[in-house]
């Protein structure tokens, strides 16, 4: 038996981390001035972070001991990582919300770009008219193409993940699929678009050689997005399925439940929250794609409800086009930019809604661990 340890080891007062943090910032500003002769936010931030870290560790280590100090530093690091990561994230969201919020109105949501021309924007900028145009067609395009992409990717992705986790074991096909799915995540989005377009052009040429340009449809875009989406769905689902305890499967098998039913009724419901969250992130990932949509679905200004014929616009292509190729270049480009930000806001709201929906579904189906 070694020495007796004290229960109430010395502990820094609760406010200490905050005091140290504030002190570090002040010291950092001072040092910033002394050494670099000026106030530079990144320099001060980095400096403050380092000083804070060292100070927390030194103080805590001398007072509370090394382990506690490590814990404090780790907590500080993790928390600052979080806060620091939030800065760009919030700035991005804020940019979208503030710019989009200022521009958005019901008309933008209900009109298309049909009949839109630069002179109208010039009049708007000159204060002679209200903002014309809108992106109803792009909202419809986004929703349709995304749904179609989901209809293709989710079954393929989830089933593949099930194959990998439940059936493949360690066989070669399983390993090959796992590996290639990883590779698939690295396909540049434009290549996915070109592939889908080439595929459907070939098919269109075989089926209807006479018709020109029928390969560019919403469905082609959905296929392109699926190429991007499937690996994310597979990867996420696979990881989540592997976490389902073997116990549960055994319990089910022991009741004489066939494997497939065990998977459908026990394994999937247990992991549904994780799977849905993976699907949501996959949707979020592809719903913002620009390049593959432009090469596969063309660029429409009008409303098109038909996935299988005619061009379509989506919110990202709309945003891209409005920002980079304004209806009226020059001074009046600001009008296009306003529409673009409003569309970006709608896109984020759309994903937010999807995310919420997924969470609600997950909550209903997820394991009930509450006691």
């Amino acid at each position, binding site marked *: 038996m070694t020495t007796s340890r004290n229960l109430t080891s010395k502990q820094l007062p609760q406010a200490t981390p905050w005091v140290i943090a504030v002190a570090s910032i002040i010291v950092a500003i001072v040092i910033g001035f002394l050494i670099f002769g000026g106030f530079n936010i990144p320099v001060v931030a980095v400096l403050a972070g380092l000083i804070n870290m060292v100070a927390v560790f030194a103080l805590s280590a001398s007072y509370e001991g090394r382990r506690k100090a490590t814990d404090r530093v780790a907590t500080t690091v993790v928390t600052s990582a979080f806060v620091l990561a939030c800065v760009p994230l919030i700035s991005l969201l804020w940019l979208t919300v503030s710019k989009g919020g200022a521009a958005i109105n019901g008309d933008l949501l209900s009109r298309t770009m049909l009949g839109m*021309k*630069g002179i109208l924007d010039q009049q708007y900028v000159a204060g002679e008219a209200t903002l014309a145009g809108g992106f109803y067609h792009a909202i419809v395009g986004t929703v349709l193409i995304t749904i179609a992409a989901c209809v293709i990717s989710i079954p393929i992705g989830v089933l593949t993940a099930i194959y990998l986790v439940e059936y493949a074991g360690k066989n070669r096909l399983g390993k090959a699929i796992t590996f290639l799915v990883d590779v698939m995540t690295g396909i540049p989005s434009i290549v996915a678009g070109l592939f889908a377009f080439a595929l459907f052009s070939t098919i269109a040429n075989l089926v209807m050689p006479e018709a020109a340009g029928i390969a560019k449809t919403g469905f082609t875009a959905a296929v392109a997005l699926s190429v991007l989406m499937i690996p994310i769905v597979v990867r996420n689902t696979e990881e989540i399925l592997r976490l389902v305890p073997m116990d549960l499967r055994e319990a089910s098998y022991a009741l004489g439940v066939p494997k497939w039913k065990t998977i459908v009724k026990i394994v999937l419901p247990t992991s549904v929250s994780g799977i849905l969250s993976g699907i949501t992130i996959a949707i979020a990932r592809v719903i913002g794609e620009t390049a593959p949509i432009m090469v596969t679905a063309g660029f429409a200004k009008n409303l098109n409800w038909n996935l299988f014929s005619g061009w379509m616009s989506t919110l990202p292509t709309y945003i891209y086009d409005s920002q980079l190729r304004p209806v009226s270049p020059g001074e009046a480009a600001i009008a296009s930019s306003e529409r673009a930000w409003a569309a970006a806001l709608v896109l984020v709201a759309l994903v937010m809604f999807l995310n919420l929906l997924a969470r609600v579904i997950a909550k209903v189906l997820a394991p009930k661990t509450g006691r």
Partner: protein
Amino acid sequence: GGSATGEEISEGGNSDLQGTITGIGASSQKAAMDAWTADFASANSGMTVNYSPDGSGAGREQFLAGNAQFAGSDAHLDEEEVEASKEVCGPEGAFEYPVYISPIAVAFNVEGVDELNLSPSTIAKIFKGEISTWNDEAIKADNPDADLPDTKITAVHRSDDSGTTENFAEYLKATAEKDWDAEVSGNFPKEFGGEAAKGTDGVVQTISDTDGAIGYADASAVGSLGKAKVKVGEEFVELSPEAASKVVDASEQVEGRGEGDLAFDLARDTTESGAYPIVLVSYHLVCSSYKDQETVDMVKAWEKFVVSEEGQKSAAESAGSAPLSDDLRSQIETVIDSIKVEG
């Protein structure tokens, strides 16, 4: 410009037409195309014209593959493409003619400098990185009266392959060959360094954001930035639509092309007084013949509207382009009239 008379509308607009025609191509025409399609659709409620501003290369590629009824292109077809067009467009191949003429501005953002005169060789040296401050002797020589700061020059070019770059480089090659020793292409020569930005908008924004920046961009997009006057002959010419049109009128047609081919070799090195030689001319490509009468009617109606006085005026208003001259228009109209059904 002229006024939109009833006659013109019925000429360009035939409200019996039903259907969709599709075009792919140059992004430079995008703003003009927005105006044309909007106006055309209001006169022809049964017709839709789609245009995807994917780029000139994509436009020509898709058009030659039969995936679009017409294309927009910042460059005319080369010999090979002319041959290829005969496969999709019948024995006479494709017709091409300019529809959109736009001056390219050399825009700058230098504090305290509102006006700037530049000679071709100075421009070339600036974009090559050989002149690196604003108070360089060469610039002073062009601007004896200006108060030039010693700000570092940030030369901004397009990072993407673009018609604007190609036209700009062609101009420098023609007027300052000694200094501009790179091959002309849509890609800015990387070895010349400088800052690059994507798209016209990216270039304009970068210039606006950076003190001491200079770049080239479609004139319609540069807004309130300073626009340099360029040396033509012995005088410095200010950018204007009229000045831009003048160059096209002074240019020769490309030789050895068919009847319907109105491709131009622009006279960049013109010394004609009042001509502004840094221009971009963007073409429309159509087939000499289509498979059915409906398409022929639709294409004819559409293209006629595009080149009509009304169409050109609308584009000038919305997109800031330079209208075609009456002379050129009548040439083009003859070409459009000769589009026919295959066989």
